[in-house]
């Protein structure tokens, strides 16, 4: 049997983490192919239902990324993201989906961190195995 290849939805904000992903590309930093990026203008656009929907649709994990606190293009949008994601991560524990949703800050100049973030999350989800919600 081939190794389990997780399918991961990744949210990136336009100004920091998406730019960080672009920079990883410009730097030809190689990372696993498991993530699919959905771009939003600000991580604060990501409402918790998007994460639930992704998991329900069969994502093995959801990685939410945005600007570092203080770097937000919209002043403090990411502060709200942080609060919302704390709640989502907490809810995941209650639902038996612990570890499948993760929030990370990646700036526009952090190509290497983008690579690490993706690589580590893919490893984490590989260790967890396929999502119990995944329809096979």
């Amino acid at each position: 049997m081939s190794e389990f290849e997780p399918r991961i939805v990744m949210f990136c904000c336009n100004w920091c983490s998406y730019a960080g992903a672009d920079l990883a590309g410009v730097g030809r930093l190689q990372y696993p192919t498991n993530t699919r990026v959905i771009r939003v203008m600000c991580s604060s656009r990501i409402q918790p239902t998007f994460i639930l929907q992704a998991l329900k649709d069969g994502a093995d994990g959801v990685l939410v990324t945005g600007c570092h606190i203080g770097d937000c293009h919209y002043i403090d949008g990411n502060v709200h993201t942080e609060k919302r994601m704390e709640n989502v991560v907490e809810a995941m524990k209650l639902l038996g989906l612990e570890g499948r949703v993760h929030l990370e800050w990646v700036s526009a100049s952090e190509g290497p961190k983008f690579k690490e973030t993706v690589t580590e999350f893919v490893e984490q989800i590989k260790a967890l195995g396929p999502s119990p919600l995944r329809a096979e």
Partner: protein
Amino acid sequence: MAELVGAVAVAGGGIAGIQSALDLADSGLKVYLIESSPSIGGVMAQLDKTFPTLDCSMCTLSPKLAEAARHPNIELMTYSEIKEISGAAGNFEVTVTRKATYVDPDKCTACELCLAKCPSKVLDEYNAGMSKRKAIYLPFPQAVPRVMTIDADHCIYLTKGKCGNCKKVCENDAIDYEMKDKDEVINVGSVILSTGFAPFDPTELEQYHYEHPDVVTSLEFERLLSSSGPYVGHVKMANGETPKKIAWLQCIGSRNPEIGRPNCSAVCCMYATKEAMVAMEHDSELETAVFNIDVRAFGKGFEQFYQRAKNEKGVRFIRSRPSGVDIDPVTNRLSVRYEVEGSTETAGEEFDMVVLSIGLTPSESSKKLAEIAGVAMDEYGNIETAIDAPMTTNVPGIFACGTIAAPKDIPDTVADASGAASKAHSILASERGTLVTERTYPPEKDITEEEPRIGVVVCDCGINIASVVRVPEVVEYVKTLPHVVHAYEQTYACSTDSLDNIKDVIKEHNLNRVVVASCTPRTHEPLFQDTCRGAGLNPYLFELANIREHCSWVHQQEPDLATEKAKDIIRMSVARVALLDPLYTQKLDFNHGGLVIGGGVAGMTAALDIAEKGFTTYLIEREPELGGLLRTFTRLQDGRTTGEILDPMIAAVKSNPNLTVYTGTTLDEVEGAMGRFKGKLSDGTEIEFGSAIIATGANEFEPEGYFGYGSDNVITQSALEVKLDEGTVDAKNVVMIQCAGGRNDDRPYCSRVCCTTAMKNAIRLKEEDPERNIYVLYRDIRTYGVWEDLYTRARELGVLFMRYTEDDEPVVGDGTVTITDKLLNDTLFEIATDLVVLSAPLVAPEGVENTAMLFKVPVDSNRFFLEAHIKLRPVDFATDGVFLAGSAQAPKLVDESISQASAAASRACSILAKEQLETSGVISVVDEDVCIGCGRCTEVCPYGAPALKEVEIVTEEITYITRKSEIDPAICKGCGSCAAECPTGAITSRHFTTKQISAVIDAFAFADGSIEEVA
């Protein structure tokens, strides 16, 4: 004085000319962009990648070419040369010779039918003569304008009267053999000279055997590396084999007084490093060596790039200038002959290929143009400018920018170009808008009732995407997706012809949505959106699928998985585009004032440049006096006192009626965005402005803990300058130590200015007392460009140079300095000294983080401000309306700071000059029927855009007053936080609606494309 004319002639269509033209055109001036070859683009179009980010050169340039081509205020005059200039500043008559192209540009569609039939083959200049083109040709695939040209010297019909094939096959009757050169007179207020350089021809340096087929110039090597080059990116030797070992020989035609070329060409060290790295990226087994005198990695990020090449990639940097290349008479193999550093031994090393890093020389056409314009040149043929007026020639109204004035790299050229535009704009500010036309688009098609009809373009990006992702397979897959009516592959989706093609395809297939799968929307979305508008589609009915930065570039070893990922990415984009709505912008009045933070030379120049154009300007300086870092130094490299440039500048700032200066003041609060910033100063003053420039400069590092700093006889260069001015240098033996606290783990960057400063001061010390012994202990001497003169002069005066390495630094003792000299076979010297002068790097001042925070702009790891793009947007931030200049961006010399400052002013004024600002269509709106007036949106909005208002609700049973949210479109920035917070879904975040994002998530999940079933 004659009437002012609101038009500018820009001579030279390389990146410099293009940038000048775009800035002026955006500011409301008419521009004639005159280029002698058939296409704009210049040398940058020939480059493969650019240092230090290894960005694809064409990828960053191509959108600029397209923008220049479609700008309504720019008239391209390609294949044209300036013949005569008469008149004076404000009103020149320029005679332009339009060379006959023998092709009617209005009829030619560049269908290329003629290419196949043309029998005459000619060496292709674009590929540096390494391949052939036809006598009728397009210079390169992304050429602008996209029209054929007949090379009259090689056309068989035009030379012998026979053939005529192209005319026979042309279906549009575009060929006109009777066409003649003709002169056209244009009337302009200013002229900008930006005709660039010529690559040095190494033939005269016979010892390097350029005639050998495997000895190539660096420009030829760029073409060898390029996927659009003669061997589609596979570097090959003349025998067809792949080279295993390549040498780069630096300073070919530079730093060589014997052939009358004593100056440094400023770019070769970095391009050679880049070429070596890219070549090794193509072939991981390749061995590379760069033979150099000094590695001049002086620009932003260069030193780190050089260290990476050396330490991580294994490029060998051999410190020696080879005396020649030997050719084995039997095997014909190449061997580089060089003297081993620190000894008198000569070594020979075999290489498969030798790349000559040729310098930048003034071109003959530039010299001719300078003569026509009557501008003065220096002894080497560079246009003469001054440190305090780096774009200004001796002829009023005629400016120079880019490499025509001195060798420089792309970002410095771009800054120079915007700076020259600023100078021309200042003269003609009163004439803005008098000669220009509005950009017009065809009427927008109403698609609201239509089913989605989606077209998808999948870009190869040369080999950037296609070498990893199987593009044809992706195209076939995309065709199966719902609503996709047309999908096709394109080599470069962003080239002008491809953009025109997209317009045609939109019409032909009656498309109402478009997806381009190529690179990042952060750079290319506006270009494609504009193309959609040009075909009558609302620009928001477009989506970019990023299969390069997010796929092919990061999964280079995984073609299968990358191909699958590309399919997923495009499927998700198709799902999204199907649900996108047309959006409309609003035009708003805005504040036309400028704000400059920092009152050094950069800040003062920027403020003056804005104020001169008639805009209200505020200049804020934290210190009680204007002048910044330059106040701590006493002399410029040209021998003038710093006061000679500071005093008139300060006087001009203080007397300009449009300019208000606040010294001893800081900017403490900022709110708003481009066009409507509000700021509060430390003295309580409230100001409003539309655009801001950050020019907060840098300070000389206090080298505590380095080389005995702190003792009485160990001082920095700035302290030495003060002493020199006072005449109090009481020392017979002076030791200067370079890189004191720089180029190390704490400050890994090169501070750029210190070598030039050290030379300037070493010369002064020698001139003051020729009996003095001066020793300069260095790692690399980086007197780049024309400042190599100072290094030469210092050596002529008897200044002694000794080289040390980072892991074997000099030791400063009591009255002595010991050094292991690398130049003299690691000999240990003890130098008796009575004065040690440390060349300490420039560092970002305290408080940059606060300034960064005020405007939400980034700083890099060395605490210098981070520009939007290191090559082509050197003074822009990613944030609209905010710009940067001077050493706040990275250390720089005075002339460079001034050029950047004028550039930042030009960029800011291209916004301030607009009558109204257009708002974004991407904002949030409230559905009043669903809103329950809870007010959570007002709590999360960082801008206060939503406000609760009382409304009267009238129903059949009852009338009551309740609260509903309303969002001010002028304030909303479109982040969407309110939509995420709204508990009832009353808020729609346009372009990122819940429905649209949900569809993308579903498309992620359902790989069979059955989007609608689950939506």
